[in-house]
Structure formats: structure tokens, C-alpha cells
């Protein structure tokens, strides 16, 4: 037998890369399956958003019943002008459905960031630590497919925490409204709310992934995400108050999303007085920076394999 050696196990792919977009779905699904293995984190991280969703759905239901005057019947009282007025007052106290949904997203945003951080911060960091890039990029897999797959994984979990609650509350509103009026007459509002939720998840997903790509330790990525998020939030609020300049609030991601929300739904909020373009610039720049970071870091992973 002639002596030979075989050292081609991990080799750079020299063939032609044929783009098969569905490969990213395979990658995403394998990442999602890993997340499903641990039940306790799922329970802990989605319990609070779940509770908030239920409470908001209840408030929406209550609002429509108050508007329709049926709430007085539930309270065991005969409908009258007085009870109708009370119902209208209650309905106005509760506020618009879109405000309730925005409050829902705002109140649980930290838990959602935590959830997305938990599931997303290790996606690229762990691959770096374990040198799994040697396995990925020994296949005909481009870094764009790799990044898309990872992004889909983290967005899946974000969608459960944000898009799903928005959909549930809109569904409750549609069912609770008389003659399905919320669905038939305000379908554009529903679409805008869903779009907002998807944009929210996309932005935070790419941010989580970019931070994950910068380190080889999952804990550091999670920590970096939190530092960035909370420091910009707290710092911008404090500086805005101190320097009496709302421009400082542009540093805060939640404030910028608030501005986008206001613009989508045609409303205004106190303390968010700047124009939409400024917020879009800030969010756009951050997204671009995240994408550039991902491109650079995945290039290193590709070359290193």
C-alpha cells in the first residue's frame, strides 16, 4: 500500500458558490431547535411578556365593552345614559388600542431585549469560541447566508416576544370590536402596528448579532448589549434634562422607536419633538454600523477557516 496523507479535512472552498437562499433557513432552524431544548429559560423569559399581553388584551376587551355600553350589564346594572357616559369615560381612560400596544411593547422591552440577548448573544460568539466557522465555511456557504440564518434565528425569538403579542392584541381588538370594525375599518392601523413590531425585532436582532460577532464569549456579548442599551437610555434622558435639549434623547433607541411609532400612527408625544428623519438617521446609522460589523467579522470567520 502506498503511503499517503490526507490533510484536506478543513479546506477553503475553491469551487463556485451557488447561492441557495434556503440554506439560511436550514441554518436558522437548527439554531431555533437548540433554543427549544431548554424549557426553563423559555418560561422565564417569555412569562412576563405573556402576562403583559394578557393584561393588555383584557384592557382592549374592556375598552370595547365600555364603548358599547355592555359593561354596565356585566356589572349588574341596567343600561342608562349615566352608565353609557361612565363607559365612554372608562374607554377614554383606557385609551386607544395603538397606545395600549405601544405601552405593551415599552413595558416589556427590557424583557424582550433580555430574551433576544439570551438566545442571540451566543449565536456568533459561540461559533468563534468553538471554531465552528471551520465547519460552516468548509461547505459552500457564503457569509451572507450564514448571517441571514443567524439573523432569522434571533428574529424568531424576538417575533415571539413582540410580533406575536401585537398580533394577539390586534386579534382581540378585532374580535371585541362591534362588527369586527377594528379589522374592517382600521386594517391599515393593524398593518402599521405589525410593521412597527417587525422593524423593532429586525433592528434589535441585527444589533444583538453584531455585538455577538465582536467577542468569543457569550456572556460578554450579553453584557455588551445591556451596557449599550441601558447606558444610552439613561444617559440620554439625564443629559436631555440637564442640558434642556431634546436632541440628547436621540441617543436612546427606545426614544427613536417612539418617534417612528408616532409618525406611523400620526400622533405626537411629549419630549419627542424632533422630526422623523433624525430618528431614521440614527436608527439607520446604527443598523448600518451593525451590518458593517457583521460583514467584517464574518469575513474574518470565513478567511480563518
Amino acid at each position, binding site marked *: 500500500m502506498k503511503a499517503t496523507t490526507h490533510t484536506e479535512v478543513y479546506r477553503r472552498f475553491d469551487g463556485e458558490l451557488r447561492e441557495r437562499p434556503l440554506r439560511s433557513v436550514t441554518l436558522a432552524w437548527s439554531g431555533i431547535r437548540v433554543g427549544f431544548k431548554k424549557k426553563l429559560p423559555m418560561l422565564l423569559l417569555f412569562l412576563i411578556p405573556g402576562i403583559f399581553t394578557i393584561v393588555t388584551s383584557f384592557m382592549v376587551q374592556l375598552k370595547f365593552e365600555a364603548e358599547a355600553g355592555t359593561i354596565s350589564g356585566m356589572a349588574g346594572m341596567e343600561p342608562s345614559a349615566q352608565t353609557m357616559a361612565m363607559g365612554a369615560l372608562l374607554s377614554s381612560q383606557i385609551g386607544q388600542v395603538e397606545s395600549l400596544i405601544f405601552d405593551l411593547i415599552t*413595558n416589556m422591552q427590557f424583557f424582550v431585549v433580555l430574551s433576544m440577548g439570551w438566545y442571540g448573544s451566543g449565536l456568533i460568539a459561540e461559533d468563534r469560541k468553538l471554531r465552528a466557522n471551520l465547519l460552516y465555511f468548509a461547505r459552500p456557504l457564503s457569509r451572507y447566508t450564514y448571517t441571514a440564518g443567524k439573523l432569522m434565528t434571533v428574529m424568531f425569538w424576538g417575533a415571539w416576544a413582540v410580533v406575536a403579542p401585537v398580533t394577539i392584541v390586534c386579534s382581540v381588538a378585532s374580535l371585541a370590536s362591534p362588527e369586527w370594525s377594528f379589522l374592517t375599518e382600521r386594517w391599515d392601523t393593524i398593518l402599521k402596528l405589525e410593521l412597527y413590531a417587525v422593524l423593532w425585532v429586525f433592528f434589535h436582532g441585527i444589533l444583538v448579532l453584531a455585538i455577538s460577532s465582536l467577542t468569543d464569549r457569550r456572556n460578554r456579548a450579553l453584557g455588551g448589549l445591556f451596557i449599550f442599551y441601558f447606558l444610552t437610555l439613561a444617559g440620554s434622558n439625564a443629559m436631555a*434634562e*440637564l442640558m434642556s*435639549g431634546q436632541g440628547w434623547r436621540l441617543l436612546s433607541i427606545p426614544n427613536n422607536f417612539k418617534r417612528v411609532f408616532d409618525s406611523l400612527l400620526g400622533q405626537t408625544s411629549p419630549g419627542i419633538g424632533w422630526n422623523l428623519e433624525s430618528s431614521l438617521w440614527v436608527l439607520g446609522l446604527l443598523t448600518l454600523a451593525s451590518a458593517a460589523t457583521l460583514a467584517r467579522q464574518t469575513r474574518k470567520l470565513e478567511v480563518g477557516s
Partner: protein
Amino acid sequence: MNLITELPRATWLIFRMHLAATAVSRRALAGILFAAIPPLFAFLALNIGGDGDMGERVFMYLGVLVLLQVVAPALGVFLGIGAIADETEARTITYPFTRPIPRASVFLGRWLASLLVLSVLLLASGAGVAAITMRASSPPSPEAVQGLVGATLLAGVLYSLGAAVIGVIFKRGQVIALGYAFAFEVMLANIPGSAQKLSLQFYLRSLFVGDDGANWRSLEIFEPSKFLDASASSERLMVTAAILLAIGCITVTRKQFVLSS
């Protein structure tokens, strides 16, 4: 073997073994950058575009909203979580655990090393903000400075100790510690009623708000609150710290640490 003499001795040795490494670790270096942010903000607020006549206001805003509410919990969690978690992740925990020392000394020694580094960072950050704002007009009162800096140091003790205990009990303790410090406490702060009393931030603020919340007036715009008496507050925080210490020591003594191969 006498636990009363062995525990302090072994704790001191572990503390000395790890102090230098903790001080120059990547976490500590990142902590320096992080701790520099409140003084930087203070400088910007007073010198660039802001009103130079509001030293006290700047001090309170940055001290509470940034230093006490973000920097202290974040640094406390990052530096405290690794007391035992770093040893198990690096798989070096075998060495101290096969020496004739109480296991609790490993927990205490490493936590104290992190606490010293953390305290230096928080003290520097708080002192930096104080130094910058005291040079402005309407500077903060020495009592307010003392109170807020003291509260920040105590915040460091509690958050780092809580994170250390969580790191002993849970494998992925950092997310739980961060979740408590930022998501849970923020949620509690926004729920009306007595829910705030379940958060550490309530008691920490109570330490320096002064008589009838005098020092809190400028921050009322954010959270109008009724606070506890400072001495009652510090008592409860000390009891909390003692309970956390006991839980940490007992857990590390009884728990079996299965290292990944």
C-alpha cells in the same frame, strides 16, 4: 480543623491570589471605560451647551439616573458574577476544592477581590462626578455627595454579591442577574404602589434623599416617591447582604460542581 481560623485565613489567601488578575482582567478594563462615562457626561453638561449654574442638579441627575441606576448594577453584575462562575468555566475550581480549606473561602475570597476592584471604580466615578460638579455654581452639598457616593458603593456590594450568589446557583447566571438588575427592577419601579419596595434601588435611594426627600426634589420629574428613613433603609440592605452571603457560602459548600469536559 477550626473553621473560625481557617475560613478567614483561606479567604485572605484566595483574595490575594486573584486580586491582581481581577484588577487587570478585561472586565475591569471595560469597567474603567464604563465608569468614566458619568464624569464625562458631567463635564459635557456643565461646559458644553449646558448651564454652568447647576452643579447640584447635574450631580443628582447623573448620580442617580446613570451612576446608581445603570453603572453600579452593571459593574456589580459583571465583576461579581465571576466569583465562582469563572472558576467553573475555566475548570480551575478543582484546585481550591481539593485543598484543605473551607469551600466558602473560595467564594468569599474571589468575591472580595472583585468587590475591591468594583469599589475603586465606583468611587472614582462618583468622585469624578462630584469633583466636576462641586466646581460649578450651586454645587451639591457635601451631605448629598457623601450620601450618593456611599449609596453607590453599597449598591456595588449588593449587586455584586447578588450576582456572585446567582453565579454559584445557576449555570447561566449572568442573564438572570442582568434580568433582575435591569428588567425586573425597572418593571417594579413602574408599577404603582408598594412594588418598589421589592427593588434594591428603592432602599439605595432612601439612603441619601435627605429629610423629607429634600435631595430628591430635582428628580421628582422622573419618579415622585415616598422613601424610607435612611437608617431603616441601610439596616434592611445590611440584612439583605448578610442573607446573600450566607446563601452563597452554604450553597458553594454543599453544591457539586460538574465541570464540562
